[in-house]
């Protein structure tokens, strides 16, 4: 049976078919759906871990126990997971272990554009790169074969276009793999110096064997056509090459680490010009140049930023582009915004009003940086808000502490905010942390997390209380506010930033998009009462417009949250709560 599968869905299908038994991940666009789809198979145990490091450690444990195991993460998630990954490379596996890392060229939803292939090289791990959903499924299975044959975790690299494109995939049955027996083997599994010295030698031998494998594996494929140009390419770029140059010769690389040498050299000899097409960094190109294989075009043609496309290839190689036409006026951008009724809006309106320095974090609340709120000063990585607030206030002292806060979401707090709070208490900080608890992992599309009391399968479990964690970590000033009440929120923030001690305010209200949160009827504005003062516009709600010197509400967008009504001094809003 053939089915249209999303790349991420096909990775999950591959896990099922390959007999994988254990999946642990932290959500991250564009990798999130893999784990959600994997959870749909009864044969596969799947869970959300609090972060990528714990996910990898859990998968290493499952592999040691003899099962085929798996983790999915976005590219920056691999930074968090890098510590266990680098040494898991030395220890190797018992049951096969595969880690999918999803890059985001063009940064559709990421804070940087790092190229994960560098990790494969640095950690000396094999890495496979599929081009479409069918290969996502096939390469997962191949990755498990490699993992077990070469005693190594294997990496699967996708990107946004592979993860979030769909194509037809023929479905196969699951192959069951019996658990491999666990045997105690400290020489292999205790990464102490004396053992690791020996393991490193094994890793180098393994790499040599993988290099030889790369020369002959079917994962790398030569498609001979016209010989004027030969393309060396991989992943989604292969599809752009086939689209723009359907008759050219192509060497499609499926195993991107380690790369073959003889295979590429043979291909080079058969074509007049050799062009390397790869998104982000020139990893394949550098490999060719290092091995003395002449390259006629690569990063000099395509650069190392953003996504490629068929037209970018055509333009770079001097092929005529299709005719087009343009709207010749400025088209205003449409940046993402907080949804109407978003619980973060009330808080950011207060932060904007108080003109505080806001050390931000990763999540929907990053959107507080946009106009008209303009309320965020910094965003770095998961959990960074708290550490940065600590350093910032240590250097600038009490006055700065009274003018600054860290802002972090519930899921991000569980991911890597807790250690930051421990640090505040331990190192006598006077910083103030706002934990925005909207009862869900929002930005990635509503995943459960340790604070929500539900598992990936929506089964009840213990809900970890942020206030208890903070108190246990030594923070004495912990309180909870509802951001819908902007006056109370403002009062709480004023008190805590003034305090001569570290404090945490939990700003708690569930995400408007959760099924159990019901919208209220849309508000209306009485044009006779509206004085055109624009106070209501300060909340930055997409449902409020301002035309002809009056504000009006778009009833198709408004969910009746009433923040705008709280801003109005003239009672111009009608139909709000309690009326």
């Amino acid at each position: 049976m053939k089915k249209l599968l999303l790349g991420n869905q096909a990775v999950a299908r591959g896990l099922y078919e390959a007999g994988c038994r254990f999946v642990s991940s932290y959500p991250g666009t564009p990798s999130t759906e893999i784990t959600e789809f994997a959870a749909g198979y009864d044969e596969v145990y799947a869970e959300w871990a609090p972060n990528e490091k714990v996910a990898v450690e859990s998968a290493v444990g499952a592999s040691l126990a003899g099962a085929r195991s798996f983790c999915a993460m976005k590219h920056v998630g691999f930074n968090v997971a890098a510590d266990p990954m680098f040494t898991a490379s030395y220890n190797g596996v018992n049951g096969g272990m595969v880690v999918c890392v999803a890059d985001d060229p063009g940064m559709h939803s990421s804070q940087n554009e790092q190229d994960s292939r560098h990790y494969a090289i640095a950690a000396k791990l094999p890495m496979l790169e599929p081009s479409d959903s069918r290969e996502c499924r096939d390469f997962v299975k191949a990755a498990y074969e490699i993992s077990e044959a070469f005693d190594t975790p294997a990496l699967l690299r996708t990107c946004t276009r592979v993860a979030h494109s769909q194509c037809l995939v023929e479905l196969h049955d699951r192959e069951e793999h019996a658990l491999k027996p666990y045997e105690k083997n400290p020489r292999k599994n205790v990464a102490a110096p004396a053992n690791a010295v020996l393991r490193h030698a094994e890793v180098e031998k393994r790499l040599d064997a993988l290099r030889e494998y790369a020369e002959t594996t079917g994962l790398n494929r030569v498609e001979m056509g016209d010989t004027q140009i030969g393309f060396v390419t991989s992943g989604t770029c292969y599809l752009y090459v086939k689209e723009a140059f359907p008759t050219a010769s192509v060497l499609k690389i499926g195993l991107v680490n380690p790369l073959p040498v003889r295979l590429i050299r043979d291909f080079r000899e058969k074509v007049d010009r050799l062009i390397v097409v790869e998104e982000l960094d020139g990893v394949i190109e550098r490999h060719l140049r290092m091995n003395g294989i002449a390259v006629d075009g690569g990063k000099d043609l395509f650069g190392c930023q953003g996504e490629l496309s068929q037209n970018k290839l055509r333009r770079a190689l001097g092929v005529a582009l299709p005719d087009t036409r343009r709207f010749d006026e400025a088209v205003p951008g449409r940046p993402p915004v907080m949804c109407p009724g978003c619980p973060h809006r009330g808080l950011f309106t207060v932060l904007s009003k108080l003109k505080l320095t806001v050390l931000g974090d990763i999540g929907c609340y990053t959107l507080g940086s946009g106009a008209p709120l303009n309320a965020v000063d910094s965003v770095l990585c998961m959990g960074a808000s708290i550490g940065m607030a600590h350093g910032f206030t240590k250097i600038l002292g009490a006055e700065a502490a009274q003018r600054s806060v860290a802002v972090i979401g519930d899921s991000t707090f569980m991911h890597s905010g807790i250690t930051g709070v421990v640090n505040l208490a331990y190192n006598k900080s006077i910083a103030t942390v706002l934990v925005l608890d909207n009862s869900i992992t929002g930005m990635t599309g509503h995943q459960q997390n340790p604070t929500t009391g539900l598992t990936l399968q929506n089964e009840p479990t213990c809900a970890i209380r942020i206030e208890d964690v903070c108190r246990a970590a030594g923070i004495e000033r912990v309180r909870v506010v509802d951001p819908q009440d902007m006056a109370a929120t403002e009062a709480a923030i004023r008190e805590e930033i003034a305090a001569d001690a570290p404090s945490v305010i939990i700003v708690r209200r569930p995400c408007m998009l959760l099924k159990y949160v019901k919208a209220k009827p849309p508000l209306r504005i009485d044009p006779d009462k509206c004085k055109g003062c624009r106070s209501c516009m300060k909340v930055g709600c997409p449902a409020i417009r301002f035309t002809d010197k009056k504000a009006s509400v778009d009833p198709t967008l408004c969910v009746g949250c009433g923040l705008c009504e709280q801003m109005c001094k003239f009672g111009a809003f009608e139909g709000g709560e309690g009326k």
Partner: protein
Amino acid sequence: MKTTSIMIVGVGGQGTLLASKLLGNVLIGQGYDVKLSEVHGMSQRGGSVVTYVRYGDAVYSPIVDEGEADYILSFELLESARWISYLKEGGVLLTNTQKTWPMPVITGAAAYPEDIVEKLSAMADVRAVDALSLAEQAGSPKAVNVVLIGVLSRLMKDIPEEAWTRAIEETVPAKFLELNRKAFALGREGKQ
């Protein structure tokens, strides 16, 4: 058969993903090779969203590039202006006349262009339709997506009507089926 390229553009939350899913199901039913590409994540929060649908004998690239779209199905007028450069010579832009102001227009930092339909019509084959009114007539403003699919269905003459109605039955939850059947019919009848 040569590859046909369709773009579905709109504003996060307008139901463009259901429209592309429906279209994908129709095309698979016709035995085509089909590729769909969309971007999830940040774009859901009221941002500009675009989905690519390509079909033919063998489809390579999952994305549509400038000057390549046979059809653009636009859920919002400003998005029609934004993506018009992707329309191929001889392609058709099918646009909803609904306007959703983006934040830069709301804050007054930018102006929403005027007379977009007229300006676009001067450079391309544009079919404008008030899909929101038709959706409301069908029973819910949320049915805008299926109204627009109805309009598109009339242009894609190679595909029989029952293929569309069957795909709607397979894609839409049972309790919304009647609403969506009505929305599709109103779009297909084409009161432009």
